[in-house]
Structure formats: structure tokens, C-alpha cells
């Protein structure tokens, strides 16, 4: 099986995700970058699970998908709330508190 290619894809996605989190200033874009990392994790888990003929990896991936959905729901709610109050989702503009 082409395990290496899947791992490589996941690694690339992971790096893009981390890069996005560190450089993007738009709250929604940061959220999407985090989603990329989570998808990298899912690809890893499913690829490993298939390679090892073990269902645990797929189960783990299912858990992650479900939890990530809840997480993004909460995240978007917070972003939305912030947007309603200040008309911007630029996280650099969120500097009420000294960081």
C-alpha cells in the first residue's frame, strides 16, 4: 500500500495548516487552517489504520470529525459574536487586553 504518499500528504497539509495559523490574521482563516491540521490527522489515522488492518484508526478519525464539528460550531459562534460587536474579524484588531 502506498502508505508513504499518504503520510507525505498529511505532513504537507499539517505544515500548511501550522503556517496558516501562524501567519493568517483573519479569524475564519485561522479556523480553516486548524481544520487542515485536523484533516491531516484524519488522513494519517485512516492510512495507518488501513495499513495495519486495524479499525481503531478509523474509529479515532470518526471521533475527531464529530468533535471538530462541535468545536467549529463554538468557534464560529465566538467569531460571529465578536464581529457583531466590532465589525471586524481581524484578530490583530482584537487587542483590548495587552498581550
Amino acid at each position: 500500500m502506498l502508505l508513504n504518499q499518504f503520510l507525505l500528504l498529511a505532513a504537507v497539509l499539517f505544515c500548511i495548516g501550522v503556517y496558516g495559523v501562524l501567519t493568517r490574521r483573519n479569524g475564519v482563516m485561522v479556523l480553516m487552517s486548524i481544520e487542515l491540521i485536523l484533516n491531516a490527522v484524519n488522513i494519517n489515522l485512516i492510512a495507518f489504520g488501513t495499513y495495519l488492518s486495524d479499525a481503531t484508526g478509523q474509529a479515532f478519525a470518526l471521533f475527531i470529525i464529530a468533535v471538530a464539528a462541535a468545536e467549529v460550531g463554538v468557534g464560529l459562534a465566538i467569531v460571529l459574536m465578536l464581529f457583531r460587536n466590532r465589525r471586524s474579524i481581524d484578530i490583530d484588531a482584537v487587542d483590548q487586553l495587552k498581550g
Partner: protein
Amino acid sequence: MNILAAVGVDNPPLDWHALAPELVLVGLLAVLLLVDAFGGERSRWAMPSLTGIGLLAALIPVATLAYDGVVRSMFDGAYVVDNYALLFKALFLIAGYVVVLLSTNYIAEGDYWEGEYYQLLVASLLGMTVMASARDLISVFLALELLSIPAYMLAAWRKRDLGSEEAGMKYYLMGVFASAILLYGMSLLYGMTGSTLLVDIAGAIEGTEVPALVALAVVLVVVGFAFKVSAVPFHTWAPDTYQGAPTPVTAFLAVGSKAAGFVALMTVVLIAFPTQPRIFEPLIWALAAVTMIVGNLIALRQTNLVRMLAYSGVAQAGYILAPLAVAGVSGASAAMAVEAVSTYLVIYAAMNLGAFAVVIAVARKTGSAEIDSYGGLFSYSPVLAVCMSVFLFSLAGIPPLAGWYGKLTIFLALIEPGTLAGYILAVIVGLASVIALFYYARVAKVMFVDPAPDGDTTPIRVPMSLAAALTITVAVTLVVGVLPQVLARVTGAETFLSIGG
């Protein structure tokens, strides 16, 4: 006819007694939801009392399980109830109870959604109690998310307040990012070992052919948890979140959420990585050293007490990390590290919750958490000033307040292995504690010496629930400080033998 049995899946055997604390919390959650949905405004007042009673009720099965003393393992060892788990379950539940006491008046009198607040609090506590028992990557992940997601919302709970929303936003983004990194490390671990069970992972990575990948996985997992426990350089969210969030939530995050992070870190590192001390020891050593030094130095120049407590919490995280940096030397050092971390977490919970209780009480009058606003506190509310001093000097580790015993166990754990790394870290802990004293003492000075900023010296009226919270935390801080054996008996080494399996 069971449909699962029809397709060839067996129901896993369930030990209802072992799950009882969590089940009580689930029941409590349902009750709160129903009362809030059908009771409406009229039942608001009952929410905190109900929550408090429910949390105390959840302690009953914890006590009976501890009395029983049998190690209960479920789901092939993914979920274990042993003394280690029970100690932390009890800690989370009691800390949760104190947080409810702190919240009662604060939430009722402020502009907050009250019913949902307590539901989220209980949900997060449920995650924590699960975390104490989790011995599998999947259950660790689920517990972590279950405790974090409600906490993100709680941090942003203050309505129409930009500071609070910002607190929630920062906490959320950093938390999710940390989870993602953690998960990537976990996925690698799974791939190399073919198992998500921590014990199996320990056995499988011992003879691995790809040490570099193991190292990467260990580093990613440790870093992921480092975010959760606000270790430097992954601490940047903590001060902003702590300052912006409603103060009872801050207390909850600083104590409960952080303790849960440590429990997870300790469980994973000591069960899954005991064969990899060459990787995790230097990493945690550096994290601990940098965390306590930087945390203390930045705390020095804070003018807001909550921010100061946040940075002091960062520094305290460094102390708590320290024993783990030498935990891989031998079985004995691992046992001592567990004892030190658990002892410190219990003491830390008491003194930190107490400090926040005073902050909440003082803010009722002054509406501020600036250190200057504490001027003259001793002259108009001497009891609060003395309580605050007890907590601050306990955080500084001055005997006979509980903090000294926490520091002592950390020193013991660092020196026991007799390694140079341990000795150096012990000296760094000592020096960092000296720096820390500066800012704790400064607050004491303001309270005792400086005049009240606006000359207003009417005493602060402390509501019943806050007074109860203060009584509990002061009592724990003093009793454990004078008679450490009370706590040591619970955290003692022999109770932790089952951590390995």
C-alpha cells in the same frame, strides 16, 4: 434481541459502580437542562444550589470507590478507576464546588446567562473526571475536548463585553490549535504502534525502527499539552484570557483546566513514554526552567492582580512540570514525581481558588482588580486582607502555609534521582521562588500599608457563598501546611502503583 449482538458485536461489560461519579454528573446535567427549560426565570435562583448539591453527590461514589480500593479497568484498559483517578476526580469535583460558590452571586448579579453557565460548568467538570480515568489516546482526546469546549464558551460569557469575547477567542484559537498539534502527534504514535492504548504504546515504541518519528510524536504530544498547562513559550493566551474572562471562570480555568492538562500530560508521559526519557526529559526540563523563570519575571511588572495571578500561575506550572523532567530516571523517581505533581496540584487548587475568591470579594466593592485598588484593605476589611496574605504567601511557599509542602515534595522529587539535571532544576526552582516573593510581597504591602485609593473605607460585605469558599480554601491551606501528613496519606506513593497498568 440485541441488535448489536445480531451483527456480531458484544456489549462490553460495564462496571456501573466505577462509572457512578460520571453518571451522577450526566444526571445533574439533565436535571439542570430540564429545570432551566421548564422553570424559566422563576427557577434561576435554584441553579447554583442544584449544581453544588449535584457535585457533592458525585463525590459520594468517589468515596465509596476509594473505600472499596479495587482497581477497576474497563474497555480493555482504556478507562481505569484507581486511586490516582479517584484523587483527581475528587479534586475536580471539590474545586468545581468551590467555583460554584464563587459564581453564585457574581453570575446572578451580573449580566450573564445563568442557567447555561452552570450546565457548561458541569459539562466541563464531566470532561475532567473522565480525564482522570483516561488511559487511551482516544479517551484522553475526548476528555480533553469535553472539558475544553464548554470552557471556551465560559471564557466569552460576559455579554456584550469586548474583553470577554477577546478572552474567549484567544483561548479558543490557542486551545484548538494545541489540540490539533496533539492529535497529529497521537496519529503518529498510533501509526507506529498499532494501538491507542497507552500501555501498549509503551511496549511497542521501545524497539521501534524509526526513532526520529517517535521523537517527533513525543515532542508534538508534549507541546500540545504544554499549551493546555500554559507553559512558556506556549503561555501567551493565558494572561489575556484570565483577565478578560469573568473572574469565577478564570478561577476555574486556572485551577481545573490546568490541573486536567497536567493529569493528562502526566498519565501519557509516564505510562506511554517511560522508555523514552532521552526525549521527554530534556524537553520538559527546558520547558519547566523557562516557564518558571519567564513566568515570574513577567509577573513582576504586572499592575493588575488577575494578570499577576495568571503569570504566577504560569510560573507555578513550571514548578509542577519540574518533577516530570526527572521522572524517567527510575521507577522510584516516577513515583515521586507523581506524588509531587498530585500534591502540588491539590495545594495549588486550594490557594489559587482562595486568591480568586478574595479578588471577587474585593471587586464587589472596588469594581477593579488593579493592585493599587487593594490599598488599605487591611484597615477596612482585615479578614479579607489576612486571607489574601495567607494565599499569596502560600503560593510563595512560606511555611507553615500549604505551599511550602508542595514545594518540598517537588524538591524531593528533583533531588531523589541524584542527577545533575535534577539538582540544577532544584536550584532554579529555589531561585524562581525568591523572585516570585517580590510580587506576592508587593501585594501584601499594598494591602497592609498603603491608604485606600479613594479614601472609601466602608467594609466589604462578603456574601455567604463567598465566605464559605474562603473558609474551605483557608482551612485547606492551613491544615495541609501544618499537618502535611493529612494530604500525604492520600497522595502517598503506594496509592499510585496502578498507574503503570
